[in-house]
């Protein structure tokens, strides 16, 4: 996570930065528990996706694909919102 830090001469003027660059910053290591998704129960309603504060639910062509563990902070909203109990929260194995 340690980035090479630019000198004042190298940095762009003002504190301008590239939009969307936070994708380089992984927040997955904040978790103490993580969502375990059961595809067999999933109805691809995407309610988990619209409820995730971290955009950590990966959807492809309108269907649930995966949970992106690089960013999931383990809040458990997706598990709570799932109408089919297709997501359960389990302790993170460190």
């Amino acid at each position, binding site marked *: 996570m340690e980035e090479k830090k630019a000198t004042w001469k190298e940095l762009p003027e003002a504190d301008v930065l590239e939009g969307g660059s*936070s994708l380089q*910053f992984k927040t997955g290591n904040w978790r103490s528990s993580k969502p375990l998704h059961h595809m067999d129960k999933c109805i691809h309603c995407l309610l988990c996706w619209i*409820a995730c*504060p971290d955009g950590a639910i990966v959807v492809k062509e309108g269907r649930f694909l995966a949970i992106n563990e690089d960013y999931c902070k383990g*809040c458990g909203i997706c598990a709570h919102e799932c109408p089919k109990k297709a997501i359960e929260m389990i302790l993170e194995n460190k």
Partner: protein
Amino acid sequence: MPTLKELSSRPERFVSGHRLCPGCGAGIVARQVMLAINKPVVVGCATGCLEVSSTIFPYSAWKTPWVHSAFENAAATISGAVAAYQSLKKQGRISQEAVFVAFGGDGGTYDIGLQSLSGAAERGHRMLYICYDNQAYMNTGIQRSSATPLGAHTTTSPAGRVLPGKLQHSKDLPAIMVAHGIPYVATAVPGRWNDLVTKVDKAVNCGGFAFMDILSPCRLGWPHEPALTMEITRLAVETCIWPLYEVVEGKYRLTYRPKEKKPVTEWLKLQRRFSHLFKPENASLLEEFQKSIDRGWEQLLKKCESA
């Protein structure tokens, strides 16, 4: 109204890697708002949780042009951006279509930013101002605001031996914004995403200044189980603590009516900031809380009927 499938095909413009708390309501609000706007958009943020957590140099979670200048002036800053856009457009120096959105917490909106908000609304800049309302100054550590509900414990309205938390009711900011005669005012909650998304779309297309007050739970400040963030906003709607309505050109309309109005205690009991209200000595305060919600709901229904 777009389906979730349709929304999921849109590009995310509030992306992962921000540092809001796990389960933060503001992250959900920001994502849903940005997904709802199906146009190129320029965003401004007031100083606050959303701003500091989403743009810690050199990482920004905003995949759209974004600016922050200070705390009390998101509306004024974006009003300047809108003026620039109109000027350059008129001169033919840009061809890009764009809409403009400002985000502020309840501190930056109800309190320190009220003047700048009022000025921008009165001048009628074509922009959407979103208050992500977590009902206290959460970024500085949970101090009371004029959006904090009656009886809530905050660090500057603490429940103590003689005082039962905040002594005042929250103010009706949407009504204040309606009084500006702006074309669109609405409330929303992330737990009813379809209502929220529909309203944001209407707001950015209303042709003038639009204001939305969106309830945004704070798992640290309320505090509540983080998994309940969406649920707790739906419960705020079901108890009529946070009714869902819109005001189009001054006309009130309920956008969702609870089938059965739940008692406020259903909402209060999930949050520790209200735990002292359940002590016998605070029974009358609890009663007053319910009464004020009932009163507000009746008044809102009347406004909707007369429209």
